[in-house]
């Protein structure tokens, strides 16, 4: 029997063998693996880098109280950065799918245009969603900009949606039935978390407090930047971003406000990226 953790293990092994650094998840709340410093900072500048890691990603608006078989508040991504991308980067990716037990010649796989953009990070890229029998299992992106800066060399970002791939391989119809290991299901491990956080995000979160926190985090981030503490500044920038997501799921942000808040986080991340490049670009890793 294939399990969720075996699939993760297998993918990590594949990318380790390919020569990637295997990193660990970041310990600040993020909405996607892209926000991990191992992506945000490493794609900047001229140094080549290869890294892979799992990143639990929080999306408050996706919470469904553990009731929707395919949507969860906190899902897991496996993120790979190849900088610069090899010419056969697509084939290398496809090989990883074979490695975890997907006989591609028996399935319907397509690369459909999907250009990725993270306005709060001043980042965007060109690429595809990879559809496997109609299910989006991976986001494949050639980064073009991050922190508002043009990138060179380009990085290829491969983001696997682990729950989706695992339900596909194990042929389970609900993510909660997914075997995590031989004894426990995904639901057994995670359902309480989904129920409680959905309730918190949609019903309980104190929006006044969150607005205050947003301002405080933003202020602290700028203070860090002034003190030349770029990585701590980024942590607080991530906290702003997560706070914004919480406010959004509470329906507390109007469309006008939304534009303004995104612009605030963006201008913070752009400054952070610029400082980072100025400070570290000349120093070899």
């Amino acid at each position, binding site marked *: 029997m294939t399990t969720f953790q075996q699939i993760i293990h297998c993918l990590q092994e594949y990318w380790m063998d390919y020569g990637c650094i295997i990193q660990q998840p970041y310990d600040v709340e993020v909405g996607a693996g892209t926000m991990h410093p191992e992506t945000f900072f490493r794609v900047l500048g001229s140094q080549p880098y290869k890294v892979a890691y799992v990143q639990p990603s929080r999306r408050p608006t996706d919470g469904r109280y553990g009731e929707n078989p395919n949507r969860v508040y906190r899902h897991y991504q496996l993120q790979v950065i190849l900088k610069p991308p090899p010419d056969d980067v*697509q084939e290398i990716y496809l090989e990883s799918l074979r490695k975890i037990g997907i006989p591609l*010649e028996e399935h319907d796989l397509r690369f459909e245009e999907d250009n990725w953009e993270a306005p709060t990070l001043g980042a965007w890229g060109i690429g595809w969603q990879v559809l*496997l029998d109609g299910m989006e299992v991976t986001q494949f992106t050639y980064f073009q900009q991050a922190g508002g800066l043009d990138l060179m060399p380009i990085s290829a970002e491969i983001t696997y949606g682990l729950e989706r791939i695992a339900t596909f391989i194990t042929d389970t119809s609900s993510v909660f039935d997914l075997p995590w290991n031989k004894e426990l299901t995904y639901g057994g491990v995670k359902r309480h978390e989904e129920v409680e956080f959905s309730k918190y995000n949609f019903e309980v979160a104190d929006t006044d407090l969150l607005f205050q926190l947003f301002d405080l985090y933003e202020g602290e981030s700028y203070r860090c930047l002034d003190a030349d503490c770029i990585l701590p500044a980024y942590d607080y920038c991530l906290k702003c971003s997560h706070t914004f997501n919480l406010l959004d799921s509470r329906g507390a942000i109007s469309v006008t406000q939304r534009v303004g808040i995104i612009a605030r986080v963006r201008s913070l991340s752009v400054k952070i990226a610029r400082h980072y490049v100025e400070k570290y670009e000349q120093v070899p890793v």
Partner: protein
Amino acid sequence: MNKFLFELGLEEIPADMIPKALDQMCDSCERLLGESQINFEGLQRFASPRRLVLRLEGLPDGQAEREEVVLGPSQSVAYDQDKKPTRALEGFARKGGLAVADIEVVDTAKGAYVSYRKTIPGRPLVEILQEILPKVLVSISWPKNMVWQESRFRFIRPLRWYLALLNNEMLPFEFQGIQANNVTRGHRFLGQAIIQVQEVDHYLDRLRENYVLVDPEERKAKITSEIEQVAPDQLHALPDPDLVGMVVYLNEYPTVICGGFDPKFLKLPQAVLVTVMRHHQKYFSVVDESDEIQPYFLTVVNTHGDPDGKIRKGHEKVLKARLEDSAFFWKADRKETLKDRVERLNHVVFQEALGTYHAKITRIRKLCVHLEKNEHLDTAALLCKSDLTTDMVREFPELQGTMGGLYAHDEGYPDEVCQAISEHYKPVFLGDESPSSRLGALLSVADKLDTIVGCFAIGIVPTGSSDPFALRRQAQGLVKVLFDLKLDWSPRWLVDLALKNFPKELKGQEITGTVTDFLEGRIRHIFQEKEVAYDVLNAVLAVDIQSVNDAFRRAQALAEIRSQPDFEALAIAYKRTKNILAKQSIELSAVQEDALADPEERSLFDAYRKIRPEVEHSVHEGDYAAALRMIAGLRETVDPFFDKVLVMTDDETLRNNRLRLLHDISQLFLSIADISEIVRERDEHYE
């Protein structure tokens, strides 16, 4: 004669960009060959997500040999007085590697010069192809480019290989670090990774053996025939040519399979089901003979088959999740009524300077009151934008309006209200239909009018290259609705009405004229599509437009009568009248009967006086054909008038009286159209 094949291999190109890019590639190849004096007999084009292909046939071995005349010094410089060759001539001959005897004298526009003929060999085809292929690649312009390597070369997706074959030989060239070869690649999973192609003519078959149908027409034929075959008995796919066009370019080896979903989802509105399947999944919906949706779907997969149903099951699972989500939205959205959502529109921005959607519906409601006092219309206007706050519309923006109608229906609003909400965005695209209900049409008019006038008021005016609010399409829609539903308001009145809703400080300047001109441009467009001749159009639009339909009726009447001989002569007479009057600026008094000196002017006046009330009556009734026929009857008296009567006589009383008569008659014309715009059939040939 030679055959040449070029295949550009890339990572997957966005499907909707492929046809245009392929045409650009082939067109620029044709152009560049032409510029290099290379003709060919045939060009074929193929494309799939991973390749753009062109194939040329009947190519020569190279450019033809040509002869060039090399001019030297003038005859007077080349020969001295004794007609002996000078040193200049000797030098010229030596340079050409010729004897003086081989030099001849030619006459040019500047006089006689010495010259010789030189044969220039044509460049070989290989060389020319090598030279133009990189240019062909660069000439493709993509909507959104990317960089992927150090050279920072920009293209739609990374270039990966070139297959370049001249007959049975590889044509070497290099571009962006990639060498051309005689190798192509098969289907990603079903074919070989490396396929050698020995000859141009083998290409299509070699790819087909490797599960790539590179000819889009072949893929399309396979898809359309399989759509019919695999639909369950008695059922068929909902026709969707746009979707067919899309899936043709999403697959290298398309196969249609049929899947199903739980009939419990049939409780969702049909529009939602169709959109869910189409929007995210690109599935075709399946309907029965009465177009009722059935719990099946057809999907086009990129492989040769699905023997044990694994792929089908995968797609079914994905669709189930999507439908589950939509059912969640359908349930959650209905927890809050459309009326309660109206308040939420205070937080949804329509346009920064024009305010929120709440402000917009307030303006729309005011407009609607003037269009028709109707309780249902007012309700529809109040609720028409509420669905913008629903999760369903957030997920599927193309369902705006439709969802509002469905939710209104669910809340028990009268059918007129639901239909008006549901239809008020129509016509959505060029060629889309107007709302079918009167209230839907009125709401559509109010909404579009508000957008157009509001945008103009704050200076958002469409230019050749930029029209962010799609005002042209909105105006086109507005005019179309007015026309189709015979809503008889003048554009000017409508614009003034809408302008009242915007505060004074917003209107930097008087814009009624600008907006009505803009709308007139759209009217022109619609009439042209209805094949109204341009001069008739000009004649009709030169007078104030009462309504779109009224203008159209005038145009029809004018088109009908213009070919009659009386009318043609009259048009000339009118043009003369207009010219005469244009030079006069004096205040004219009424025609004095006792000052009508000549019999010709007397009979013209009598004829005019006789028909005037009848013409006015016909115009009032909108019977423009009858009015024009009566006016055309004036010809019998107009012609003698111009033949015999001198209008610009020295006698001021007589002159003013005659001018006044002409003025009155011209006003009669102008109540219908400015017929001086009508081009006579004869003139037209010289236009």
